[in-house]
Structures are given as C-alpha cells and as structure tokens.
C-alpha cells in the first residue's frame, strides 16, 4: 500500500462525499426546523435531471445548476405545502416526492431526448471540471505534502469547495445568527416561537427552501460534476445515506462533514476491493461495505454509541392555537 493508492482512495472519498454533504446539510436545515424530510433523494434526483438536461440544451453548466436548484425548490414547495400549510404527514409527503421525481425525470427525459430516460452526455462548458488550486503544480515535487496538496486538496470541481464552505457557513447561520436561533427553536418548541410573535410557518418555509437549494447543488454535482449526464435513478440511495449521516452527526454541521466523509470513504472502498483485501488480508464482500452505512446508522439509532436525539418537534405539524 503506497501513498499514491491512499491518496487515490481519499480523493474518491472527497468526490463521493460531496453530494452526501450537500444533502446532509439540506436535511439538517429542514429537520432542525421540525420538518422531517425523507424526500432528499427525490429532490436530488429532480435537480440532477434538470441540471443535466438544461446544461445539455444550453451548453452552460451554470444555467444547468440554476435549473437544478429550481427543480429541487419546486419539490420543496410541494413538501412545504403538504407538511406546513396543509399539516399533512411529512413522511408520506417525502415518499410521494421520491416517487414523483423517480417517475417524472425518466418520463420527461424520454420525451425530451428520446435516449431511454437519460440525457445526452455532457462535455465542455456543460460540465463542472476540476480546477487546479494555485501553486499545486509548483509544489507537486515536494515529498509527501506536495502530492497530498496536488492530488487530494487541489483538482476538484468548484462545487466540492462550495460544499466544504457550506459547513462553517451552516454552523454560523444556525449558531450565531438570530435567524438560526429561531430556526432551531421552531424545531424544538414552535409554540414558544409563535408566542414571541415570530411566524412559525414562514420560518419553516425558509428552512424547507434552504433544503431545496442545497439538494439542488447535490443533484447538480452528481449529474454535471461527478458524472457527465443524467441516468435513471442516478442518486442510487444517496438521499437515504445522507439521512443516515444526519442521524450519525446528531443534526450538527461539523459532525455532518465527518459523517459524510466516513460514508464517502466506505463507498470509495467498495469501488476498490483490492485495497481492502491488501490491508486486511481477508476477502471483504463489497455488499458488506455497501450496507455498512445503514448498519452503522441502525447501531447509532439503537443508542449503543451515544444517543441520537432528534429535534423535539420534528415531524409534527404546528397548529396555531385557536
């Protein structure tokens, strides 16, 4: 096992963790405001499709990204309508959104592009390309640190750095601003926020919309950064892994970063079974690695490794006293 292999696996880890991180932070804002969201998967999928489709048509990845965010936002709007305005069951709404995105993306893709439910392959300006950070080429020859900087830190697409920046930003918004304080309060005790004269509905809509924007980034990164185009069901359960990471992180931004990196690392390992076999000298089935995020989450939920306590008012529609 040499440095190059380790760096390769870690590099893949960062790439695979990015969509998870966006989605996990998205879920964090929503759930901290008391709106449980199991529709992350669907929002990502909608964004992935629209970003790839619009990028393919316009040739501009930035227009594609905006379209992807609009797609995820419209799914968020449905979720908000169902769970805030009409006080419906948030879980069922999430399930509906996942199916809606799963079906609509393929139906529309087939109708627009006629390629069996996928978009044309993206190239050139229609994709996010990796960017080389300043000095990476020059420092490349420095032993150990050079390759780490060149391979691991530099050379990702811009959205990877945006995702990493979102972590301190989310922490700051939630912990250091008035909006964040109110948002957290509305997830714990909406009646108290209401008594203070702040609109519970408006705060929750704001949280759901932030969730939409972030899942929009997640989906757009999948289709235009990680891969070159949309294929059916391309999120492949990432929305649920993000949900698992959210529980793993106990609904905190910095912990979300570590949790998504861990789950990204597991995904990267299951792509390179030879690495693990080389280290452990035993045959580890890739199915076990695929299942590990879910198993870990169940263990966490069972309370064996610290307790994960969700926001208290999560999942409950708020009925203003009449």
């Amino acid at each position, binding site marked *: 096992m040499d440095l190059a292999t380790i760096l390769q696996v870690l590099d893949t880890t960062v790439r695979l963790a990015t969509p998870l991180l966006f989605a996990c932070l998205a879920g964090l804002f929503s759930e901290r405001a008391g709106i449980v969201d199991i529709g992350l998967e669907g929002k990502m999928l909608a964004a992935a499709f629209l970003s790839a489709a619009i990028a393919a048509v316009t040739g501009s990845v930035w227009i594609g990204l905006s379209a992807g965010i609009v797609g995820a936002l419209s799914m968020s709007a449905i979720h908000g309508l169902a769970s805030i305005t009409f006080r419906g069951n948030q879980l*069922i709404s999430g*399930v509906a959104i996942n199916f809606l995105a799963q079906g609509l993306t*393929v139906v529309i893709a087939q109708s627009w592009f006629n390629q069996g439910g996928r978009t044309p392959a993206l190239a050139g300006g229609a994709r996010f390309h990796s960017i080389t950070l300043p000095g990476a080429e020059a420092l490349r020859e420095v032993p150990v640190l050079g390759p780490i900087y060149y391979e691991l830190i530099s050379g990702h697409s811009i959205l990877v750095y945006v995702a990493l920046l979102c972590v301190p930003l989310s922490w700051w918004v939630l912990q250091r601003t008035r909006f964040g304080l109110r948002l957290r309060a509305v997830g714990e005790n909406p009646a108290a926020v209401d008594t203070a004269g702040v609109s519970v509905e408006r705060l929750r809509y704001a949280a759901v919309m932030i969730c939409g924007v972030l899942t929009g980034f997640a989906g757009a990164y999948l289709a235009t950064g990680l891969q070159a185009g949309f294929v059916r069901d391309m999120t492949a359960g990432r929305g649920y892994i993000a949900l698992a990471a959210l529980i793993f992180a106990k609904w905190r931004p910095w912990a979300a970063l570590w949790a998504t990196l861990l789950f990204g690392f597991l995904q990267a390992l299951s792509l390179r079974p030879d690495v693990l076999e080389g280290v452990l000298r035993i045959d580890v089935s890739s199915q076990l690695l695929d299942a590990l995020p879910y*198993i870990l989450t*169940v263990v966490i939920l069972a309370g064996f490794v610290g307790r994960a306590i969700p926001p208290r008012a999560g999942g409950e529609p708020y009925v203003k006293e009449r």
Partner: protein
Amino acid sequence: MQKMPQWADVLLIPLVSLILAAFFSAVVILAIGENPWEALKIMVEGALGSTYGWGYTLYYATNFIFTGLAVAVANHAKMFNIGGEGQAVMGGLGVALVCLYIPFPHWTLALLAAAATAAVFGAAWAAIPALLQAKRGSHIVITTIMFNFIAASLLNYFLIGPLKADGMEPATARFPEAARLPTFQDMFSSPDNPLFRGAPANVAFFVAILACIAVWLLIWRSRLGYEIRSFGWSEPAARYAGISPVRIIMLTMLISGGLAGMMAINNVMGEAERLVLNSAEGAGFIGIAVALMGRSHPLGVFLAAVLFGFLYQGGAELSLWTGIPRDMVVVIQALVILFTGALDNMVRMPLERVFSTLRRAPKPDSKSTTARTAE
C-alpha cells in the same frame, strides 16, 4: 361530533383525491405530447380487456394486497412500516431456500411451507426495527428504511455467492417442478376454451384474499386487534388500560412484516420460480399507496390493490403501444400517495366546510321538522 358523515370520509375523499391524481397524470401525459384519453383506453383494453390482461392485473394486485395489508396493519398502531420492500425481499429469500432444498411431494405442501417460511423471514426482518422502537425508541421509519438497503445488499450477496446458479445471471437455480404453483390458466382453462394464457396470476391470489379476511378478523374481531387500535388511537390511554406498548409494537410489526414477506409466494414462487435481483420490484412501497387509498381497511386495500394492478399492467401496455414510458406508472403512484396521503387535508378541509354549512342550513323541503337551531 364527526365533521362529516362516514360515507364521505370513506368514499368521497378518496374519490376526490383519485380524481385530482388522475387530472395531474393527464396533465403530465399531455405535456409530453400524448393523448390522455387514448392512453386510458389502451390501459383499460390492455389490463381488463382480456383474461390475459386480467391475469397480469390480478398477479400484480396479489403482490400489492400483501404489502398493502402489511402497511395497513402497522397503520392501525400508528406505525409507518416503510420497510415492506426489505421484508418482501427477505420473504423471497425464505421461499427460495425452502423450494430449493426441500423436496416436496405436492405443490400444496410446498405452498404451505413456503408461505410459513416467507412470513417468518419477513417478520424476522421487521423484528429488529420493532425491538429498537419498542425498547430504545429508535424511530421505526428510519430503521425500516435502513433495513430495506441492508436486505438489498444481503440479497445481492446471496445471489452472487452462496445461492448463485451456474451461468452469468445473479439468480438462483429454477425451483423444482413439484414446487410449481398452479396458475389461473391451469385452474380455469379447458382445452376448447383457453383462458389466462401465459399470465402469471396464480393460486397465491386466493391466499391473498384469505389474508384480507384474516386481517379483518384480527383488527376488528379480536382482542389483539382492539389493543392495536387503542394503542394507535392513544398510546397513553392504552398504557393506562394495561396494554403493554412493547408487546403491541412487537406483535404489530411481526404481523406486518410477515404479511409483506408472504408476498414472495406470489412473485418468487408463483411467477419467477427462482430468486432474482431486486425481486420485490418496489411492491413494498406501493403497499404504502394501497394502504392509504384503502384507508387501512382490508376491503379498501383489496380494491386499491386491484386498481394499482390495473395501473401496472396498463402501464406496461402503454409503453408497448405509445411513446409513454412505463415510468408513468411511478408518477401516477406518486400523485396518488401525494393526494390521498400527504395532501389529505387539502381535500378534507374544504369538504368539511361544505358539510358543516349543509348541516347548518335548514332544508326547506325536508319532511322532518326536527328544528335545528344551529345559528
């Protein structure tokens, strides 16, 4: 006092929700440049126009009855079992093991053994999330979602590893002839009047009907059912009445998981006759829509399951004859879940208002003079 008569709750609201879902489905079909009316005609013709179509419709319906009942039973205890998919996958694993390794003299014995094993496997897969909910308070929705993925990985592992038959495909060997269930064609066809030719509907359909009756007896005619419903209605009240929450959560989820697992006698034993990847094909999730539409009542579940069977078979015909892909069914399914489940209040609140104004307004032509002094 109830805000509206029961018939409105049971019939009118699902009907309005269904019309809304149909309307938006038609909008989607229009938007992709196809004709919704033609599409509906093709679906009806393809799914209900022949015994062959019915054979497929009822085959799909059988799957959905089992998973729908599974969700419905859990609903009565106010639990959302979203893990029907994983439980059905595990049921399939149980059926495969029984059919592959036990030489049965007759299909009836094979069916009994397979149904029992499928139920046990499904129940076992629901048992861990149930235990975590009952003892540790871990949210059952999240744990059952996680268990769906774990089940998929496990199935993958078995089909690539220990149970894999010779050949390229990740699938088990074909089950022996003695474990073959009679199809509708075997049962109802005569040489001069062939019916259901080649359609996969089989004897499991009747097992599904028996399951409906059993669930009705359980929920409304047994002590346990009463306890389940009281627990679902109000946990503190049930606790005060001496009902053990741990016991109810465990039993409800075991029954629910068992029902979802039993789906495997239809799709794995009755149709595929071997275990393949992704054997449940999303039927576990359709159970959610079916239970919501059927208002968690076995009769409603049965009707909703037939409706979704129609959608599935009709959707397959659509992709054959028009430019509408089969995924349109998923869209329709999403809209049904959205309107009957999540946006229930959007339909309910205006209707409640209509009924309460109707009730308040004195009817001029009504014979009964029981004066209603509501104003």
